[in-house]
């Protein structure tokens, strides 16, 4: 753009301005919707968390009365019911990290299987995606039925091979003897983690597979010439290539699982030691009918998530670039 006639140079800014104006026109409808249903609720949620509001007062109370703002809801959220909040927080972390790692490992395993051709591979790949694309309501009920204490096929067949004939989704702890030690297994929590791993591994699978198919073939050929065995090729060539994708996947799945409400709510409603923060928010709102505390927990959850994502991006992604 060095040697342009004056006429064009004079027109250039106006073209740029026109383009910018068009851009604003194109973006505005979306921006309004986003402001209305995302940004505005996000900010208002903070205000609600500072007000003493109960569900039954909602239609009549003056929501713009800011004379009574306090952190009482936060104190209440953290100390109510003997500090149940900390239990819920711990369960949320175990659930999130457990499900995320499981989904990633299963996804990786499936991707390594599908990478090489075999008869029926395309159909197999289609089946692998079922758990992820099927509506959560139906898969939750299918598993709920398969895990039923009396008629569940998994429970009944499991009992034949020595698994405890118990209700997997509603048993808080299962005492097991391990090396002479008696420990309590958090059975319901483990079950929902297994469900999450099952439901979300296809997501990880797709991303791993896409990355695997981009690994240059000559890397393997060179390694084979050097005498690397299949397991060595996997460990020294394939897995290092997947590090970046695995990092991204971990972040995405962590965030989405941390926020997840539907799955546990549908499986057992957060009973038997599976109450996670989103379920607790829902319970504060509808079971204990306290809008203020409910919003306070929501703010706490958003803050925790924000801090974790910030730390992750700061410390883990930067060094990979």
């Amino acid at each position: 753009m060095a040697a342009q006639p004056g006429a064009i140079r004079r027109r250039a800014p106006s073209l740029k301005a026109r383009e910018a104006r068009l851009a604003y026109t194109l973006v505005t409808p979306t921006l309004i919707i986003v402001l209305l249903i995302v940004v505005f609720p996000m900010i208002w949620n903070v205000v609600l968390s500072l007000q003493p509001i109960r569900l039954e007062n909602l239609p009549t109370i003056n929501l713009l009365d800011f004379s009574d703002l306090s952190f009482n809801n936060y104190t209440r959220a953290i100390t109510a019911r003997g500090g149940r909040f900390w239990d819920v927080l711990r369960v949320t972390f175990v659930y999130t990290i457990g499900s995320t790692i499981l989904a990633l490992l299963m996804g990786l395993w499936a991707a390594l299987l599908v990478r090489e051709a075999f008869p029926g591979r395309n159909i197999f790949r289609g089946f692998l995606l079922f758990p992820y694309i099927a509506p959560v309501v139906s898969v939750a009920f299918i598993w709920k039925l398969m895990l039923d204490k009396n008629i569940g096929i998994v429970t009944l067949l499991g009992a034949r091979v020595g698994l405890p004939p118990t209700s997997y989704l509603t048993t808080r702890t299962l005492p097991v003897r391990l090396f002479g030690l008696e420990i309590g297994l958090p059975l319901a929590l483990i079950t929902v983690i297994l469900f999450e791993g099952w439901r979300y591994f296809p997501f990880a699978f797709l991303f791993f597979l896409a990355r695997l198919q981009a690994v240059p073939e000559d890397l393997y050929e060179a390694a084979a010439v050097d005498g690397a065995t299949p397991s060595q090729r996997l460990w020294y060539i394939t897995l290092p290539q997947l590090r970046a994708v695995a990092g991204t996947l971990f972040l995405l799945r962590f965030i989405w699982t941390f926020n997840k409400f539907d799955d546990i709510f549908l499986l057992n409603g957060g009973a038997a030691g599976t109450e996670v923060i989103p379920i607790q928010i829902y319970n504060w709102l509808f079971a204990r009918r306290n809008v203020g505390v409910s919003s306070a927990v929501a703010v706490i959850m958003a803050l925790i998530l924000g801090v974790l994502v910030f730390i992750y991006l700061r410390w883990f992604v930067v060094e990979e670039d």
Partner: protein
Amino acid sequence: MRTTSGPTTWSREIIERRLGTIFKVLSILFFFVITAFPFYWMFNLSFRPFGDVLVNPLRMVPRLQDLSAVFAPLTCLGGSQSEACQTAIRNSSYAAVLVNFGFLTYIRNSVIISLLTVALTLLLAIPAAYAVTRLEFRGRDAMSWGILLIYMFPAIVLGIPLFVFFVRIQQAMGIRLRGNLYGVTIIYLASTLPVALYMLRSYFPTIPRDLEEAALIDGCTRLEVIWRVTIPLAIPAIASVALYTFMIAWNEFLYALLFLVETQPSWTLPLGLQQLDSQEVPRTFLMAGSVIITVPIIVIFFFFERFLVRGLTAGAVKG
């Protein structure tokens, strides 16, 4: 790494290969069973009478008489209201769910809300994504980051204030947004818009700029370029966005629960199914409902698998 002489490496190679093959076959079987069996079981239970499920919970295939009981109400399609027909409907899981438990209405509601969500999402996301990828304007980067941020934002956190907002709107202006399918569609956009923007934003840059510039030089305005050049070239991406948006809306549960649960005539399929989950309703009906809600998604998926898989990973995998 160990450097060994030829023969030992070869034997290790062969052993590993053999073991690898066995492991691979077992793994494929394992994955096939865990992904296909639950869905098979859903079909199996949905076709059997609950009494039989209680007595023979492990029966793998429905008996012929079970199947004929399920399909018996088909003979009543002429509109017969006879006692025999009512009994036939009660005894057929699918007919009972569709007729007696209101699933016909829920199907209609789900179709309406899903299609509407797709239309609105595309209408909003295509121009916005185009502006963000192709046009220069202040705040472009902020907008790009904003999209990503919404993508991550917890739905339940937005749920509470929106719930409060809807209650108050109804109070103050008499507009019934809660329990209103069309009102709730706007909230569904909170979960579809970011996905759509994200996918389109990663696709538009792959359309050659030259084509657009050629059209500009030929005297087209930007809007004409978008309409005549960009959108036709982006059809594969737009199709996969449409399919994804449809699936998200079709599967959406939390917002339906928060905003529609008080008005049964507006229930969507996921909500209707969840409300079926009580001790009074035979579990087999629940499975029939699950089949009704799942089959359309699986059909869509099989028809458009290529689009969907490409769309899902588009732009997200970078080297």
